[in-house]
């Protein structure tokens, strides 16, 4: 399924990045997730694609939502879920990343879900291990399972994935450091949507392939989806030159700007929100309405991904 990993000789593959997937892969994953969603709504709670499988999370970075979501997805599919948490870098202990990863495989887990503060760690781990590796967020690179979940939400909202064709999507805020923006933007582009990156120079990568706006007012009335990113004040205030009040003036999605949006436009946020910075309280309430669906769909997306990787395979 994933092109990042040609040298690996195993039946099952990995889930590492949206950039390594095809449109067909994504359609398959979203369809399957939608299928789980429907069955769940009908009251089904027992799926057994992961029976006799045990999935382990290897998280080098704190996370509540993503890990819980992977855990919930695994358990709904009848699998076991274990944690291998590392509060600090293993460099301090003199153990290499590879040593740690190899231990997990030796312990007999069927798959490992990796989150790391550095870009590329899931790719590295996937090269070292035979078992499937899932990327639960790597540095500022990608957060592909979140993107699949968001596609499920958007397909539901707009009726189908095909409806995304021709849509304009504004990613507002710290695009350069957002793995969510990178994954969601790549995923949406596969369905014919166009991204616009909106933010100050500190937050926008100097790419030439994407339209850039320096003020939300310029684009707010034209977009079909406004994807608001969390402003990581602690990150920006230390080294950069950003003034928060000026940021709010130019880029906050507030009630006034939201009213200028198309009627059917959607506002999304990966959460948790910084109310009063990237959005005001009125807009945050609109986002709150969609948030539970986004979280639920995240679980169905992860069920779909896990069953694609492990379903049908013999567990250990």
């Amino acid at each position, binding site marked *: 399924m994933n092109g*990042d990993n040609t040298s690996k000789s195993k039946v099952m593959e990995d889930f590492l990045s949206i*950039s390594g997937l095809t449109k067909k892969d994504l359609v398959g994953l979203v369809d399957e997730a939608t299928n789980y969603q429907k069955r769940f709504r009908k009251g089904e709670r027992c799926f057994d694609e992961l029976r006799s499988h045990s999935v382990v999370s290897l998280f080098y970075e704190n996370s509540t939502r993503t890990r819980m979501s992977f855990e919930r997805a695994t358990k709904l599919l009848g699998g076991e879920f274990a944690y291998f948490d590392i509060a600090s*870098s293993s*460099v301090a202990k*003199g*153990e*290499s*990343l*590879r*040593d740690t990863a190899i231990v997990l495989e030796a312990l007999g887990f069927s798959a490992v879900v990796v989150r*790391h*503060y*550095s*870009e*590329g*760690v899931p*790719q*590295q781990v996937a*090269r070292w291990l035979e078992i499937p590796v899932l990327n639960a967020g*790597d*540095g*500022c*690179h*990608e957060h592909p399972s979140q993107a699949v979940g968001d596609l499920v939400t958007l397909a539901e909202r707009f009726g189908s994935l095909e409806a995304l064709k021709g849509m304009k999507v504004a990613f507002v805020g710290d695009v*350069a*450091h957002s*793995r969510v923006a*990178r994954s969601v933007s790549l995923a949406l582009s596969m369905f014919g949507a166009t991204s616009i990156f909106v933010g100050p120079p500190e937050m926008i*990568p*100097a*790419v030439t*392939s994407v339209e850039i706006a320096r003020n939300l007012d310029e684009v707010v009335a034209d977009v079909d989806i406004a994807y608001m990113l969390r402003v990581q004040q602690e990150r920006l205030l230390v*080294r950069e030159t950003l003034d928060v009040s000026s940021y709010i003036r130019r880029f906050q999605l507030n009630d006034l700007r939201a009213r200028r949006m198309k009627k059917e436009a959607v506002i999304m946020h990966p959460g948790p929100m910084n109310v009063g910075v990237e959005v005001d309280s009125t807009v945050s309430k609109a986002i709150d309405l969609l948030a539970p669906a986004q979280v639920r769909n995240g679980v169905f997306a992860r069920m779909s991904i896990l069953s694609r990787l492990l379903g049908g395979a013999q567990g250990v």
Partner: protein
Amino acid sequence: MSETWIRGGKVLLGERFEKRDLVVTDTSVYSPDKGAEPSSSADVIDASGLYVGPAFVDLHTHSRTPGKDGSETPESLAHAAVMGGYCSVVAMANTDPPIDNVTVWEQTKKRFEQLPVEVIQAASVTLGRKGERLVDMVSLKENGAVFFSDDGDVISSARVMKRALEYSKELNVLVAEHAQDAELAFGAVMNEGEISHLLGVQGVGEEAETIVVARDLELNRVVGGNLHLMHLSAAGSLDLLRYARSKGISFSSEVTPHHLLISDDELATFDTNYKVNPPLRSTKTRNRLKEALREGLFDVVATDHAPHAKHLKEQSIKEAPFGIIGLQSAFTATFTALMEDIDLDGEKESYRERALASIFQMMAIHPRKILSRFTSAETISNSYVVVDPGPETSQKESDLVSLSKNSPYIGRNLSGQVASLIIKGKVLLKDGELYKEGGFS
């Protein structure tokens, strides 16, 4: 007395090759008279179809001695040098402790004395390599140090750099700069560009190098000291070098084999063996560097051989240290780079000879010339290397003799091979393998 006959090879004379035999002893080198035969004690190397020139000299090696012998030992370093065709390497000062005083410099130098290759130990420019206060360059020079560098770090202060250049002039020593603005490079892992944006990885642009190159050249225009610009990797630096040359500003410059052969798109797999500083650049810049090499803008090709133990490179791309090994593969990598986009059927042969001649200039003759301005080193005369441009071989980790295996070429096909190495008349390498243990026994 050691005596080696190199027979049937094409020998570099000036900038061209001529077929002739060569006799190399520990004190001399000459072409034998017609009909003369080697004595029974002499070694004979069959160089038919191969190319012969002065053994290579590397101005940029990280020995890891003292303090980091988990990554390289003097013996493994020398072994890699011999396999790469080197008779002499300059060892950088970014060790633990750094080489910033006479005592450490002398102790470290001793550690290399029994090796079959010569290691010229550099000293740092500033105390503790902190970029603040100059080392005692006077005493170091009195004791024999001629190569000064804070390599691994830039000398951030223009004031300190200017002073260092003034001393380089007064003492007749070389100051080598790692030209990269530290502020712009802070936190960066790779080259800044389309690839770094796709990967979400923090990058550093080429301007971090060019602004320091511009500063140092301007300082040396005023001072007239001995400035060496290390591992240049930015297209903008090339224009600055051309300008400086046209104005008669004194400097020497180097480029590494890896900046000539590989680009930043290799990082797309997050393989830490491609993490190096200065970073691998775009293919566009890489092609500019190759053009500049052909134009003669660089004085030397130097390896920046930077061994790191496996457990250090098996960290995340953020945490893994910068650096790749290069001594053993320098000739093949450079030759492959120079031959890479040449597909002129009829002229390939003559182009190949020109490429080989220019590699000998960059890797043997110019580095000697630079060093000979400051030192009367002995070993580097009467040493010859025989190279085979023929074979294209897939690089295997198991063939690497450096203690560390952080090579970006593993699994890649490279052209050419270092066949034999003779140092002061003694054969160390023959047909690609150590000869009589290569002097390591």
